[in-house]
């Protein structure tokens, strides 16, 4: 890369990072993430009952005759009453909060009737859990405590995926493995939209304020194109770095709050490398395309419209993601992974779902790289031919002619 390309790169980078819209876009994601967490905390604080400070006392009438012990359960104290009338009177008098009737045929039916004065959607979780435990403890009276504990929580499933050689596979799949590539692909789309938007806007401004003529009298079209794409790419990388750092900070916070949902974010290194490779290739592809669009369009508005044509391709895999999740190995998925315009996003979504055959990855990357190189050569020619045309958008025929000639 020569010194003029670096000058343009530096200029474009600095101009972009200073844009208000860039700063807003970059900070919006962390702020939204934190805001989301904050809202989650407030909402869950509202719905989850305040930690039970006083134990709920529950009266009960034992129609079976074997529920006498284990009346001290976590958060709940059970009080036996000889008859239903006495239990009801105790509740009305306020000495118990509610009462249960365990009918004589309970062991056969499992049916227990609960009486309460509260209007509620359903019985509070910890009361149910305490009753559960109280009944089990009494039913399994003769068993040792370990068996009782197992009966209360009989299954803690841990699934392990083995590869062909029988070793533990690096990619264990599952939600944790899926969520990160999916997030990556969404970030890539956001980065494509914002960076290419800046590229179009910048080119449009330079065409409108006629700086373009001065630029082209100083540097070559290819230097200008390369400098712009890489400068904006660098700005895009900064944006991505901020976003990924946000995930790094927010995900542990979220795991701590929400539970193990996001705590399983273990990403095998191969997936991370592929993610970054596809991210960079995907960005380059779309940035060069957008530069070409910027060169042939006469106003920023027109550029925006034309660019939609291409950004649609970027979004197709996300539209199809429901289908891809169900059928990660389907022929359509393979085609989308090989077609350069859809490959980056499709592969990222598929990475988290199932093993992608090595030949598909190799072919997909090779096609993408070849396409990018060809695109760069063509775009430099289109750039040269049309950057100085004002007022009239060239027809498809002229563009093809320019590509052949230049």
């Amino acid at each position: 890369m020569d010194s003029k390309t670096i000058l343009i790169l530096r200029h474009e980078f600095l101009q972009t990072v200073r844009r208000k819209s860039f700063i807003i876009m970059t900070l919006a994601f962390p702020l939204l993430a934190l805001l989301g967490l904050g809202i989650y905390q407030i909402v869950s604080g509202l719905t989850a009952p305040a930690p039970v400070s006083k134990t709920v006392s529950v009266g009960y009438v034992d129609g079976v005759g074997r529920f006498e012990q284990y009346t001290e359960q976590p958060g709940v104290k059970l009080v036996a009453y000889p008859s239903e009338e006495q239990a009801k009177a105790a509740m009305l008098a306020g000495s118990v909060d509610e009462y249960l009737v365990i009918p004589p045929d309970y062991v056969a039916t499992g049916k227990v009737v609960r009486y309460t004065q509260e209007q509620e959607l359903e019985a509070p979780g910890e009361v149910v859990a305490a009753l559960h435990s109280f009944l089990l403890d009494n039913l399994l009276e003769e068993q040792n405590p370990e068996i009782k504990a197992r009966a209360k929580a009989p299954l803690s499933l841990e699934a392990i995926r083995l590869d062909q050689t029988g070793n533990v596979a690096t990619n264990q799949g599952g939600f944790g493995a899926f969520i990160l590539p999916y997030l990556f692909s969404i970030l890539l789309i956001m980065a494509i939209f914002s960076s290419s938007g800046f590229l179009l806007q910048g080119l449009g401004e330079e065409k409108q304020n006629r700086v373009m003529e001065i630029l082209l009298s100083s540097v070559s079209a290819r230097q200008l194109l390369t400098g712009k794409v890489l400068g904006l790419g660098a700005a895009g990388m900064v944006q991505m770095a901020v976003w990924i750092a946000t995930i790094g900070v927010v995900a542990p916070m979220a795991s701590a709050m929400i539970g193990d949902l996001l705590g399983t974010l273990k990403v095998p290194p191969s997936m991370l490398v592929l993610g970054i490779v596809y991210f960079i290739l995907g960005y380059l592809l779309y940035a060069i395309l957008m530069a070409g669009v910027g060169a042939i369009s006469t106003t920023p508005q027109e550029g925006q419209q034309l660019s939609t044509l291409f950004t649609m391709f970027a979004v197709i895999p996300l539209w199809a993601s429901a289908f891809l999740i169900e059928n990660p190995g389907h022929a359509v998925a393979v085609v989308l992974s090989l077609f350069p315009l859809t490959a980056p996003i499709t592969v990222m979504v598929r990475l988290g779902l199932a093993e992608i055959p090595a030949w598909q990855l190799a072919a997909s990357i090779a096609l993408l790289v070849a396409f990018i190189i060809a695109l760069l050569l063509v775009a430099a020619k289109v750039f040269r031919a049309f950057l100085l045309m004002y007022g009239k958008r060239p027809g498809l025929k002229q563009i093809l002619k320019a590509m052949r000639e230049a």
Partner: protein
Amino acid sequence: MNANHERHAVEVQDVTKSFNGRKVVDRLSFVVAPEEIFGLIGPNGAGKTTMIRMMMDIIRPDAGQVSILGKKLGEGTKDVIGYLPEERGMYRKMRVIDSMAYLASLKGMDSKETGERADELLQRVGMAAHRAKKVEELSRGMAQLVEFLTTIMHRPRLLILDEPFANLDPVNVELMKEIIFDLKKQGQAIILSTHRMNDVEELCDRVLMISGGQRVLYGGLAEIKSRFRSDSVILEYGGELGKINGISGTHQHGRYLELILDGKTSPRDILNQLAGQPITVSRFEIATPSLQEIFLRVVKNGQ
């Protein structure tokens, strides 16, 4: 001071360029010498801008050769040229000093030197106080002056100015002309493309006029003017003019009279005849047309 003194600043040989099958520049040849101001004139759509863009390697000729300071055109020759386009461009949101520095650095100027040079130039036109302003905050004339200064920041060997004086007030026009003359003295070649024929007559040493992409006038200004000298004299006088021999007719132009010679009589004969007449002659000159008139006549003949 000029290593390539013996070479041409610009040499254009048989250059042709077509757009969509229409010849915009048609087998055009000319040279520009160092230390001269060269007028590039012609009606709108004559191919001037296309020719200028080809000299800068922004577009390539279909046929023919362009060389700058003896070198074949390429990325390297861009650095020795300074170009002020007709539709001038500046980054409107950037500060004056930053914009000047960035565009000069793209011309290969050392970035350590750009700030000092920009300040020196702004100082010269009395705009030092505006260095930190954004370009969009400047008046139109001021912005144009800054654009001109940006063009000469990197001390180009060849300066191409497209309508540099449009939109400027007379004071700034004089200021810019002064700088242009200074640059010429320092050995720079300057190509001036303009429709203001008075400026061409005032500034240019030689002139190229193109029309329909072809060369229709080319040479020293004085030589061209004498070539277009009509066979007539201009007379301004007081009193009653008697009969004069050897003329084929007269034209009254407001305050002065044009005497058209019959081809056998010289201006000196006429002067001798006038000396014997009872009139006071306040002006007697051999009629040379203005560049404006030559321009109009050439364009008309071409059609």
